[in-house]
């Protein structure tokens, strides 16, 4: 570890932060895989309350054996092997929107997918809330949240990332773009995914119908729920890229042991 030289290591991540980080990672991937399993049972997303082909935003299907197609806003492309006509987890292919390698369980099983999804939805939500409350009380949450002072620094930071600027703007533990990403994930996308998931429930719809209405109805809530999942996957991809490029050993060690070696 060449980077472990000058400054002494600092204890950067509390146990709850590290534990919830890894629990959340597992829960997120279980939720994505089981969510795709559930999606496969009705592989359309409509911007409407009841199902409405006239307001279909996404449709993944198989018009005939051996062919998979994906339609977005009515534009259809052939996606055989990737979407629509994919592996069934038992050695052959069939009319499944997402292939068995991407779903939990790894074969067609809506009931099984729902069991995984409805259990890990609790794990992910409780984990997120527990961490949020604890770091708000400790005050460490403030370091991660975008403040008005950070806004003018967003663009210089982006320029620095693009190597169009030599030094990053002055910032604390997290730079302005990181803060923007964390704020978006923690306070916009995560709640959106939880609430739109709840809006799909006929039991909750009977208790709090406005919840479903504000998202444009039940099918629209399903669309938001799916879009939120894609946004979280996008965050995950950028996050992993950053970890991999910003001293992966140091980063991984700090999220496992808590100790971070300042550069």
């Amino acid at each position, binding site marked *: 570890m060449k980077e472990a030289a000058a400054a002494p290591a600092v204890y950067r991540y509390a146990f709850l932060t590290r534990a919830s980080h890894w629990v959340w990672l597992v829960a997120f991937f279980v939720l994505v895989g089981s969510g795709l399993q559930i999606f496969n049972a009705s592989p359309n997303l409509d911007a409407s309350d009841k199902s409405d082909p006239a307001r279909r935003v996404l449709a993944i299907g198989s018009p005939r054996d051996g062919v998979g197609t994906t339609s977005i806003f009515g534009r259809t492309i052939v996606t055989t092997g990737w979407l629509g006509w994919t592996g069934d987890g038992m050695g052959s292919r069939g009319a499944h929107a997402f292939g068995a390698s991407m779903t939990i369980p790894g074969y067609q099983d809506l009931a099984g997918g729902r069991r995984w999804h409805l259990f890990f939805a609790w794990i992910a939500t409780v984990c997120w809330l527990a961490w949020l409350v604890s770091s708000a009380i400790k005050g460490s949450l403030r370091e991660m949240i975008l403040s008005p002072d950070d806004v003018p620094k967003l663009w210089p930071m982006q320029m620095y990332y693009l190597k169009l600027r030599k030094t990053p703007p002055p910032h604390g533990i997290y730079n302005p773009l990181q803060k923007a990403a964390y704020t978006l994930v923690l306070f916009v996308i995560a709640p959106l995914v939880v609430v739109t998931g709840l809006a799909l429930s006929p*039991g909750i719809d009977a208790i709090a119908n406005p919840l479903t209405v504000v998202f444009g109805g039940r099918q629209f809530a399903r669309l938001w729920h799916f879009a939120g999942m894609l946004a979280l996957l996008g965050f995950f991809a950028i996050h992993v890229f950053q970890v991999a490029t910003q001293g992966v050993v140091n980063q991984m060690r700090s999220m496992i042991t808590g100790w971070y070696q300042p550069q």
Partner: protein
Amino acid sequence: MKRRLFIASSLSTLAGCGPISTALSQNQSVQRVLASAEGLNHALIGTRGLAREYRDRDVDRNFRVNGFATPSDAHYAALAAGDFSAYRLIVEGAVERPRALSLAELYAMPQRTQITRHDCVEGWSAIGKWSGVPLSAVLDAVIPRADARYVVFRCLDNDGAGNLYYESLDLHQARHPQALLALRLNDAPLDPDHGAPVRLRVPTQLGYKSAKWIGRIEVAGSFAKIYSGNGGYWEDQGYEWYAGI
């Protein structure tokens, strides 16, 4: 190098998830733990409030057929051929006054019409105008005994292997004002695909609870001894008994 190693190990971890998730999906203890969320959801969400009721113009004129289409067995075909004039809805079990109700008798009971959304467990939704007898009115007519806890619906169709479709609600769910024994859909008598002559409508839960082709209603203290003991045909296939989410 380190970066490449990191990405390679991440990818191989993901690739290992398929077999692991399959093994865990088939492990009974794991599945019991996962299924514990149902109790939590039932306790927290339960059956409260009223499902949204829509306007006439929101109705799907070609209401999508959920589950199975017209039952194929001869008994049902004979009833349908006679316009269900020989049909009797048997209501029995843990009740003071068992009844066998003809369609005419059901139509003579207090009627309710509700335009509600059907939320299928598969993810689609459709809106229908349902008319029929509130289930609570039928329960009032037979007077459940003190040991009654569940209302079990025995259907007229079988799955091809001889298993009759069935469903169940607890008395609280069964007494919900929108729990309806529907006789009509979109201003016409139910057709066989949609559950003629009598189907259940429970708009506060997913569509599979709304059993079609009801032949017999059995008020019971428990459903543990019926088929696999999970309270319904789909429940016996692994779906939740509480289908409010």
